[in-house]
């Protein structure tokens, strides 16, 4: 068992409101990712769940029981810190054994548990070393092993891969997913890396300035962002946003372009809107009914694809294209828009207007 529920978490540090009513429900066995830019309150949320942060308001329930007043030890959670926080004077073995020693396990139990987790993470040969003798990736594995050596209610991970180089990060991503599957345990995982969130999570909560913007599966968050900010934060290259308004059966852009009005939008005429278009829903290679006139602004070859920056009026659209595409800045072209996959947001509130019809 391992459900984690946080309700209405509020916490301020001086004048900074770090958490402004954060509510999360993590089901048993989920790989739950809290995603947000730095300063969004992700780490504070995790520390509040762990019992390391005294809350101004709100409650934390673990397995349905109110644990708001419990000490970290009583909550029966394990945490991997961004800085790893390995005890410097102790060997990797003693670091990993620490949670078991704290719970007074016998030394034979400890030896068996440490061996098991060491082979799971391939760190058998590092056990007698001290943290100072380990590389970043090795420290990361030892820190992970210290969490995995027990079977706590849930595992909390605070940007565990952020300090690793790219290759190792990709490797550990696969490994963590594998470990999560094999343990079937609850993971609450904090990151600012949307690739980690989209590739590993069962559920993602997007956080901004201490407020939850959206909770959903990676697909939901990507395909149906709740608001303009989530649309802009999730996705690479970032979604292109164009100011416009509806006029009869057309969408009219601030720069004078027009597109057929999507069937699903309910916005009344004249209301200020933002049209969100993802790079893969735009094309400069195919023809369609809905298109925007523009000119080539620049090319970003990325190996497997090329992102074409197209200037439409005063805005830049990012368009995904074949890696072999060529173009010279200033060249006129038409950008075909897949309006069924476009997003419309209220320009004032930023809220999505796309949800209803889909």
């Amino acid at each position, binding site marked *: 068992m391992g459900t984690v529920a946080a309700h209405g978490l509020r916490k301020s540090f001086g004048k900074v409101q770090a958490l402004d009513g954060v509510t999360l429900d993590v089901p048993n066995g989920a790989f739950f990712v809290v995603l947000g830019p730095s300063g969004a309150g992700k780490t504070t949320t995790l520390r509040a769940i762990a019992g390391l942060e005294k809350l101004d308001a709100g409650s934390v329930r673990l397995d349905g029981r109110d644990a708001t007043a419990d*000490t970290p030890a009583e909550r029966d959670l394990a945490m991997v810190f*961004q*800085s*790893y*926080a390995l005890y*410097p004077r102790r060997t990797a073995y003693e670091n990993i054994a*620490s949670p078991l*020693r704290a719970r007074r396990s016998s030394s034979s139990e400890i030896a068996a548990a440490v061996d098991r987790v060491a082979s799971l993470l391939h760190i058998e040969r590092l056990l007698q070393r001290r943290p100072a003798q380990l590389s970043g990736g090795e420290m990361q594995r030892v820190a992970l092993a210290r969490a995995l050596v027990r079977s706590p209610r849930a595992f909390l991970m605070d940007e565990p891969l952020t300090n690793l180089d790219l290759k190792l990060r990709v490797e550990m991503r696969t490994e963590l997913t594998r470990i999560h599957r094999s343990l079937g345990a609850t993971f609450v995982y904090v990151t600012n890396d949307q690739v980690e969130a989209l590739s590993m999570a069962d559920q993602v909560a997007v956080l901004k300035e201490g407020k939850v913007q959206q909770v959903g599966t990676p697909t939901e968050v990507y395909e149906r962002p709740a608001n303009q900010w989530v649309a802009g934060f999730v996705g690479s290259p970032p979604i292109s946003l164009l100011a416009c308004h509806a006029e009869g059966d057309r969408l009219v852009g601030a720069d004078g372009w027009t597109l057929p009005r999507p069937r699903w939008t309910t916005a009344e005429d004249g209301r200020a809107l933002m049209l969100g278009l993802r790079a893969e829903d735009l094309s400069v290679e195919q023809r369609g009914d809905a298109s925007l006139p523009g000119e080539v602004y620049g090319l970003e070859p990325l190996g497997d694809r090329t992102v074409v920056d197209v200037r439409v009026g005063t805005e830049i659209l990012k368009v995904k294209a074949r890696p072999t595409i060529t173009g010279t800045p200033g060249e006129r072209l038409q950008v075909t828009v897949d309006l069924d996959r476009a997003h419309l947001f209220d320009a004032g509130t930023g809220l999505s207007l796309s949800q209803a019809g889909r």
Partner: protein
Amino acid sequence: MAVSVDEAVSAGPVPKHAPPTRRRSGRGRAIVEVALLTVLAVVMLFPVLWMIETSIKENRDVYAVPAKFFDFDVTLDHYRDVFVSSGLSVSFLNSVIVAGASTVLATVLGVPAAWAYSRFTLKAKKDQLFFILSTRFMPPVVVVIPIFLMYRYIGLIDSALGLILIYTAFNVPFTIWMMKGFVDEVPAEYEDAAMLDGYTRLQAFRKFTLPLLVPGIAATAVFALIFSWNEFVFAIFLTSSDEVRTAPPAIAGLIGGTTVDWGLVAASSVVFALPVLIFAYLVRKHLVAGVTLGAVRR
């Protein structure tokens, strides 16, 4: 590139050229340095040397005019007198007890306080710390009369306990300030991790942070010990009997009779100075070493 290296360098507000004087003279500069340092060393060390010489001279050589620097008769009689006939051994024992107890007390009280000030958010923390530091702003002699009156009222005059308490009172603020710096250097995450492991907050402090503070504690304790060991003003005002007196007023008391036994004064001064030197020597590594930093990436 249109900009030359020189231009690029001089474009900065302060060109970082080394002062030319540092480069110019090699040998001449070294001679001046050595000469100045020699003068300094002689001025600083002559009294110490004279004290040591006096402590091992025969009495007639001590009073010889002109003073004998090299060809005096060596004796250890003065040292025997320090421990046997003068009664100073009681004073030294008192000094050990008073300085040791007050240092232990200040450390036991000050280290947890420093940890608390470092780790927790407290109301008006900066004001509290300033208040604690402010007790060190004035010299002890300023408060010696009020302390004397208070001590007389509660019966702590002429007692070892009285001295221990007043030295502790002076050392606790110092310990808190010194140790807060050392605790700040130890990442709080070790304790967070330990609490997640299943330890209580105090266990986390004791088992994980405290061992990393040992060098800092040693350094701080040496300073507290030296303060208590050397303290003179309170010792001479608050104690009067030979059974309670610590070494500084007792040694000072040797001067001022009709005749002064300078050999005994010098020998007792050497004995008095030695423990501090030895102690500082033993912990010299810790005095300069910072706190061992571990596996936390910052």
